């Protein structure tokens, strides 16, 4: 082994070895942090998911009981349903809206940089502040959303956050607030599409829609695919909005999966049960991601491929 190592070191050279050392030196804070604060707790939570555990008293091994109890838990299914509906709504709407705005911001017009900043700005505001702001916007009597609905369209807006049918659409609507990040990604991709494609299409007589459907969108599919996966994962982890704005109500209509997990862990002292919930969420996301990856070959176009 020593001989092999010596040979390798000789092959690497002094400069390369220095770089290797520097690499390990610089990565070690992250690595140590990952081992202690992420990998350790992740594996511990897996162990605790097979226990009754309240953090304070010793864990008691119960095998799969937490998992089987969860499958019989009405609120578990309710939270899963709420989260799935939100996920479909927010991911689809988010992709459409951010792609649309990115296309607008990609046009060569005066002051476009200002608009790009304006559209990105909401993304940097913290979740709690955004939630409080939207509580005002969605207020039934004094909110701007209902005011606009009434003044512009003559419609009496619903009681967004107090109505079991409107609370999820309201939170989906609110999710548009954070599409700035996706817009930037779409914009970057749009600006990376070679202009020769469009020039060639124009010579062939293609119009705006034809170019959009036949050139822009196919070349955007890798980015749409990326945003879909990250969007789905993000949407299953929604917590702040429900915690701050609705507390899961009315009548559990906005009881998101992670909110219910949080309650079990920190309000009901059921850390083992919550750990099982966390691992089920992980499995759900793995399956969804796998499905998206499997289907991607049918609709995602990679130039290099």
């Amino acid at each position, binding site marked *: 082994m020593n001989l092999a190592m010596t040979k390798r070191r000789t092959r690497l050279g002094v400069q390369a070895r220095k770089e290797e050392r520097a690499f390990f030196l610089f990565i070690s804070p992250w690595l140590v942090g990952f081992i202690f604060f992420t990998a350790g707790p992740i594996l511990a939570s897996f162990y605790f998911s097979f226990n009754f555990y309240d953090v*304070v008293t010793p864990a008691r091994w119960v095998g799969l009981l937490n998992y089987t109890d969860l499958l019989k838990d009405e609120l578990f299914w309710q939270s899963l349903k709420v989260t799935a509906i939100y996920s479909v709504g927010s991911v689809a709407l988010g992709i459409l809206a951010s792609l649309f705005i990115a296309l607008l911001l990609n046009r060569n017009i005066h002051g476009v940089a200002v608009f790009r900043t304006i559209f990105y700005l909401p993304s940097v505001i913290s979740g709690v502040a955004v939630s409080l702001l939207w509580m005002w916007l969605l207020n039934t009597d004094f909110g701007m959303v209902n005011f606009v609905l009434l003044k512009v369209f003559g419609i009496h807006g619903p009681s967004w956050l107090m109505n079991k049918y409107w609370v999820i659409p309201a939170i989906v609507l609110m999710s548009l607030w954070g599409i700035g990040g996706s817009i930037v990604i779409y914009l970057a991709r749009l600006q990376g599409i070679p202009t020769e494609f469009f020039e060639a299409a124009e010579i062939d007589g293609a119009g705006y829609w034809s170019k959009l459907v036949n050139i822009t969108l196919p070349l955007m599919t890798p980015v749409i695919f990326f945003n879909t996966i990250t969007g789905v994962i993000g949407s299953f982890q929604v917590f702040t909005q429900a915690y701050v704005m609705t507390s899961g109500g009315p009548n559990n209509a906005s009881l998101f999966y992670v909110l219910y997990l949080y309650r079990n862990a920190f309000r009901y002292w059921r850390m083992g049960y919550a750990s099982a919930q966390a691992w089920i969420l992980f499995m759900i996301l793995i399956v969804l991601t796998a499905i998206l990856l499997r289907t991607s070959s049918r609709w995602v176009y990679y130039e290099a491929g």
Partner: protein
Amino acid sequence: MNKTKMNRRDFLRLGMLTSAGAILASCAPKTETPAAEVPKVEAPTATAQTAAQPVKIQIMWRTNPDENKMLDELIKVFQGKHPDITVESIYVPWDEYEPKLMTMYTSGIAPDVYGTGGTNPYIERWVRGMVLELDEFVNAESSNFTQDIFPVGLNAYRKKGKLAALAFCICPSGVWVNATRFDEASVPYPPIDWTDPKGWSWEEVIATAKKLTNADEKKYGFNPSHAGPWYYTRMWGKDLVSKEDYESGILHKIMASSDTAVYDALVAGLQARADTMWKDKVAPSPDTANSLGQIGPMLKTGAIAMEFTGGWAVWGDLPKEMKFRAAINPKGGVGGSGTTCKNIWADPLEICSKTKAPDQSWKLVRFIAMEPDAIAVEGKYRNVLPVSKSVLESFITAQKDRLAMPIEDQIKFYKGAIEQAETTVPDHILVGWAKVRDVFNSATESLWLNEKTAKEVVDDMLPKAQAAIDANLKELNL
């Protein structure tokens, strides 16, 4: 010189070893006291620490500007009286209080004294052995000490005959009144005498509220913020919790599931509360209350004339152009056949079962709860009443300008509220109540939104509540 160099393989090996160690450490069985086996403490003895070196203790409190200033000042006064003790405060946001306390306790670095937090599940901590029982400290005090505490303050946290925590302040439940709205409508003020057997019937409350309501102007007579089934069952003369469960601190069942009279009281009470919005139309609907509440506290803005809630309704800055009063809680049932709901919020102090300085911690608890100079400091920052009988009147007198009531009426009201009080709220004193409360809250939302009747809601929520209790008991392994 032959230097030992770490190559990538060694580095990864070290990383894996450290990771395995961390995992093993986190999975290792703990040596803490098993559940429900509350550690005993010896009678107060002199600490082993030398007098020359101050003993350092910690107290944890929720983040709240006024309360944090109050605690800082309390610590300053305490340290002046006890130069041998140094007190360090830890302030934690409300929602993070319990998770932080749990993890600190498990890590062996819990604060010596637990102050007021967010959700405050005091008995949940006791049943898990996180707190010292205080009987031996209290018994070691002179008889004057216990005689000076209002009985509800001393007994609120007595479980299985043991004192799990010592209440240090009391917030009475009552009906808080915007007297200006009463004056404008020429309506007489509501009663303040808790001892009057006639009480103040629910029908009288609604009749008064009707005179004060103008829904077109979004002005309402009443807001029964106490939405929970527990209150309404008690007002209608019954109780959802059995005497045994109150005594043990462990919730085993909801009495309405097996006792028809309790069930009827629960249904009638909840329906009456819903009727304030949809039938009597004297209270704002949840939606309207949500809107009005975003402008400011409804009692203080005058949107409501009466609020059935805790004393915090008249805390903080009160608008100078308005006057405020207090009144006794309504008496439920037809023609006042129920009972006047006599409950308080009693916030306690607890001592950590792992503290290395129990005597010093007790001195701090005793100081905050009972000593006049501490209570005077507390009065500067908030209006929560002390548990000490001897300072109550002077405490109320010092704050007499808050309410537009003669001082003798204020003393009569507050003293009556504490002396008549039977219990603090179940959130604080019953293991398993948190989940049941969430079940109740979710179920009753359909009632408050006028989507279901009280009976439908009760029939739906009782089995769910029992399932939540059973799941909790199964995990507690008592």
